[in-house]
């Protein structure tokens, strides 16, 4: 049994990917849509894993970066008439650029100060989208842009392939010297900079990478829904992405992917709750934080399972501290 668990843990990422590849064949059309959203969220959440999990910089403005990616893609296609691939590339580039700019306040601010700044950034982007109606469609939303690939299914496969490559890259970054520098920001910034870690550069890299993935996720979101509205990018949405990172164990790539997909599909499984999706999310998060951190002093899915008496945690990276 123990051997089986070890084997599962080692190949967790591969197993998840194979399951995702099989998903279109075994799910109904609606379930498939939910899985698609899950994969799209996972790309965004891997970016947050770098920013929040590795580097310890809490952001509640991530939905705004997602919006930047999605809207840039939509606007470039609808209003400018660009090719979808060019539009996607430019959207990711612009989001990365703006997201890197968010690192500037992070040079001087930490903790709650930084979080409030990101909340402010999120609100600014939302208000701009809502009010720049000629460009963004305002409250009516934006529609009528083409997909990257003609069939939904192929877009999905593209997304899974992207997720797989990103997952490996994020994992490698986590284990590299860059990852160590990012983690040192979280633990002791002063010690890090005195040891020769270029703190500003590390922060910029962290923000840039997470913004890039948010932008990419935004492009895929536009591809999936075909319609964009400011309501999908509120602070509450940012909070639910935060939930996905935390529930994934804050350090684990596979954990983040699994938690993104599970949490995205949770309201579909718990249909009877309909309007209170976020109520359930937040309650789960509260209970998780309280039980997991206070009892075991550390956080991961595995830790929680241990406290609840289960022997196995799938989403646990080997460098989990």
């Amino acid at each position: 049994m123990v051997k089986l668990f070890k084997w599962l843990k080692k190949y967790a990422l591969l197993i998840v990917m194979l399951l995702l590849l099989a998903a279109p064949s075994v799910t109904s059309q609606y379930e498939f849509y939910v899985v698609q959203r899950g994969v799209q969220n996972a790309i965004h959440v891997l970016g947050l894993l770098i920013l929040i999990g590795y580097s310890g910089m809490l952001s509640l403005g991530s939905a705004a970066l997602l919006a930047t990616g999605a809207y840039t893609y939509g606007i470039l296609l609808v209003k400018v008439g660009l090719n979808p691939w060019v539009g996607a590339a430019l959207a990711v580039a612009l989001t990365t650029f703006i997201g890197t700019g968010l690192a500037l306040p992070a040079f001087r601010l930490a903790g709650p100060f930084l979080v409030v700044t990101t909340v402010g950034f999120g609100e600014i982007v939302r208000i701009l989208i809502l009010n720049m109606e000629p460009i963004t469609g305002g409250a009516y939303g934006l529609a009528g842009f083409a997909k990257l690939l003609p069939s939904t299914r192929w877009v999905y496969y593209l997304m899974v392939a992207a997720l797989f490559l990103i997952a490996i890259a994020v994992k490698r970054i986590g284990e590299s010297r860059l990852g160590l520098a990012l983690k040192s920001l979280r633990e002791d910034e002063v010690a890090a900079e005195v040891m020769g870690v270029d703190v500003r550069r590390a922060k910029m890299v962290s923000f840039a990478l997470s913004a890039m993935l948010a932008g990419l996720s935004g492009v895929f979101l536009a591809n999936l829904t075909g319609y964009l509205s400011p309501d999908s990018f509120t602070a509450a949405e940012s909070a639910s992405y935060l939930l996905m990172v935390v529930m994934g164990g804050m350090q684990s790539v596979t954990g983040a992917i699994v938690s993104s997909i599970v949490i995205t599909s949770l309201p579909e499984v718990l249909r009877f709750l309909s309007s209170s999706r976020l109520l359930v999310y937040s309650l789960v998060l509260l209970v998780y934080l309280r039980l997991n951190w206070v009892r075991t002093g550390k956080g991961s899915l595995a830790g929680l399972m241990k406290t609840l008496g289960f022997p196995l945690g799938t989403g646990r990276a080997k460098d989990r501290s």
Partner: protein
Amino acid sequence: MTAAILLQLVLNGLAMGIIYSLPALGISLIWNASGLFNFAQGDLLTLGGYVMLSLFGKAGLPYIPSFIMTVAVMGIIGYALSQAYFYPMLEHRVNPQIILIGTVAFSVFIRNLVLVIWGTTPQTYKNPFGSSVLQIGELYLMPHVIWIVAIVAVLLITLQYFLRGTMVGTAMRAVAQRPTASYLMGIRNDRMIALTFMLSTAIAAVSGVLISPIIPLTPSMGGIIAVKAMAAVLIGGLGSFSGALLGGVAVGIAETLFAAFVSSTYRDIFIFGVLVLFLLFRPGGIFRASVSEKV
């Protein structure tokens, strides 16, 4: 004429600003006592507003008893929140980032709880201060503007006396400054921090009750106010009593003037812009708070 309009705008802004000041003060008090930044402060305010709606608007109790009951109920909720949730985390020295996430989760939870119980439609109840406009010289004022300013002024003086002049207040400040030493002096830290939560939640509830004549109640109302309150507390200086007060008033007046003279659409962007400038160039706020500790 213009001077009168300006004064009127400033007074309206003052009333709104004072509404921001109370949750801002709550954030500051909790920060001082426990080093915890409570993102749920605005949603506790919302909850207070809705409890008042049920007691006064729906159940038809008289205004003052409903007010007192609302504040008491919210105070108890604050106390329980600390004892059951936040103090154990503080005691176990959980990473501050995790506790911060916990307060965000509470914010989302309370907002959606309100949504599930009371629904999304904006609700309001009879304005207890009357809706006939008062004319003082060239000034036209709603009576609730004067009442809000008066009630909060009394509340703040009482609070200041409580914190500075009583044993409990002194003990609370002692815990905030030297938790270990005060524990050794026989002060129960958990109770003092819970008491701070109680106080903060109760004054947030006062805001929630007073806000009703100005804007209708919605579940997401607290989120918007919280963002302004956070801006207020950072502009004023985190951890400072006068900073929270002044920051709130400054934000209230500035946004009212900006909305009147420049643009009401981009009012919130203006406030965030000012906040970011403050954070970058005077991160300690008006009353310098220490933002980062070094070696």
